[in-house]
């Protein structure tokens, strides 16, 4: 029998959309991740109720204090509340698991011999992480908006600069804030993905990534270290408050977005360099 007869048909090769879909299903079907999503969705509820009965949406954070209460502000307040810890946590868990988890189970070797090239695997893993970051940023913020609109039906919003904007304008600004917040998390996810290629112990990758997120924010508070502040992605998290001024000054947001893209470029490349030269002996 000739070789051609038993070889799999060459066919047209797909773009890899099936692998990406499989990655997303793997993340979203996992009970642990579903619980993280539910926990995040509950945060705006707590914020909305606290705001309704105890005062300002921004009261736990100076960025938003002094704003009138309404739906958009609850959405922003939710974002401000989840950005420092909760979002880095859910991103660390999934991104830290993405390569290290497969290495730990041994499924990494079976993916590679399918074959999936190491580059395509890392691209699919990262694409799925991008979707996870967008989802985890959008869900709490949009639920916050919804709860806010229900609790505080007043249509006019007084923004930080003192002007008033309508609900539609405010919601559009919240969408931009969600996009910006997701981009910050995507930059951080690239870092966590790189860490995930360094170990075969997923919990170690998760813990390291989360620790880094906290350390970066602590360093950002030490004014003596101002020289390194521009390199810390967390330094740019709260630029979303610029969206609550009229007119909006986008320059700081643009700067933050560029830094996040820089993180993606640097750490995805580092992850690729690491994975494509690594002996898979798990």
């Amino acid at each position, binding site marked *: 029998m000739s070789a051609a007869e038993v070889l799999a048909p060459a066919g047209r090769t797909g773009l890899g959309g099936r692998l990406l879909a499989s990655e997303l299903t793997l993340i979203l079907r996992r009970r642990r991740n579903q619980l993280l999503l539910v926990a995040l969705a509950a945060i705006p509820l707590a914020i909305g109720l606290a705001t309704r009965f105890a005062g300002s949406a921004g009261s736990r954070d100076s960025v938003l204090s002094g704003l009138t209460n309404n739906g958009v502000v609850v959405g922003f307040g939710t974002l401000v509340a989840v950005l420092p810890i909760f979002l880095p946590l859910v991103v660390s868990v999934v991104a830290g698991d993405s390569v290290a988890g497969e290495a730990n189970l041994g499924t990494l*070797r079976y993916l590679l011999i399918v074959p*999936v090239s190491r580059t395509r695997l890392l691209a699919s893993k990262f694409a799925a992480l991008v979707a996870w970051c967008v989802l985890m940023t959008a869900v709490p913020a949009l639920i916050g908006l919804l709860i806010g609109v229900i609790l505080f039906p007043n249509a006019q919003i007084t923004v930080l600069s003192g002007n008033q904007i309508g609900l539609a304008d405010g919601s559009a600004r919240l969408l931009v804030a969600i996009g910006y917040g997701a981009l910050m998390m995507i930059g951080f996810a690239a870092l966590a993905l790189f860490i995930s290629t360094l170990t075969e112990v997923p919990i170690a990758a998760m813990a390291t990534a989360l620790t880094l997120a906290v350390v970066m924010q602590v360093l950002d508070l030490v004014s003596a270290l101002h020289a390194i502040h521009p390199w810390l992605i967390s330094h740019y998290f709260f630029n979303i408050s610029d969206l609550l001024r009229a007119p909006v000054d986008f320059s700081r947001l643009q700067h933050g977005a560029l830094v996040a893209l820089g993180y993606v470029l640097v750490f995805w490349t580092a992850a690729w360099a690491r994975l494509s030269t690594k002996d898979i002996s798990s």
Partner: protein
Amino acid sequence: MAAFEIQTRALTKRFRGGQLAVSSVDLAVPAGAVFGFLGPNGSGKTTTIRMLLGLVFPTAGEISLLGSPMPAAAAAVLPGVGSLVEGPAFHPYLSGRANLARLDAADRRARRRGARSRVQLALERVGLAAAAEKRYRNYSLGMRQRLGIAAALLQPRRLLILDEPTNGLDPQGTREVRHLIAELARDGSTVFVSSHLLSEVEQMCSHVGVMRTGSLVWQGSMTELAAEQRARVSVETADSSLAKAVLADLGLSEIREDVGSASAVIGARRPEDVVVALVAAGVGVRAFTVAKPRLEDVFVQLTGEGFDVSG
């Protein structure tokens, strides 16, 4: 080069930390063979297989798989290769079927259409169809091993590389795997199967390669191996040194003398002539036997003392 489905030249792997796991291995696996890759635990079988598949990068040496260099040609070569490496590995909280579907989805050459039937067929082939919806974590060791083999059979394969495929299987499961391997070979696939059990290799392989502490100490067909299995005459007597001299006069080879006995490879001589010569020379023959050594003893001889093939 093309006649061999697997060929390596001076293949070597030294792990970071200095461990020399594979040392200058020259494998040659002919097309159509069922090649038994035999060696005790830790002899470098899995490391060699990992290098063949591009999982581990060689420290030195060359690999040709299906006629193309590895790992350079991995994308073109690996679709034709189904493998089991160091036991099965799947996502514990997914069902057997979902795990296979994920591997099928990862294959760029596999279309979405037909995925269900490919997975179903592979499951049926290893007798797992009834347990397909169970979560992998609830599978027994044998079921896990079968699922691993099913993954290797998702596509028609020109070459199968199976690392200890009967590990953890009961005797019934072991028979089924042997049967499956014979069937795959009959359909034209080349099968490279590692094992630490000589009996297993003896039962299902046409060729064998023997690993010992990272080196390939012998390889060839089972026919060549059988030729190494030469019958010996041995005579029990009080005059062992006299017996030894007679055996030498007859031109026999590999003569050994122990207290109370002497033995030699008989070669083309007839046993009755040996007895006559012994008696004529005045050797007091107490017992006379002609026996083929067990394959295991041949291995010990080929691979050096202390090689525990059944370990």
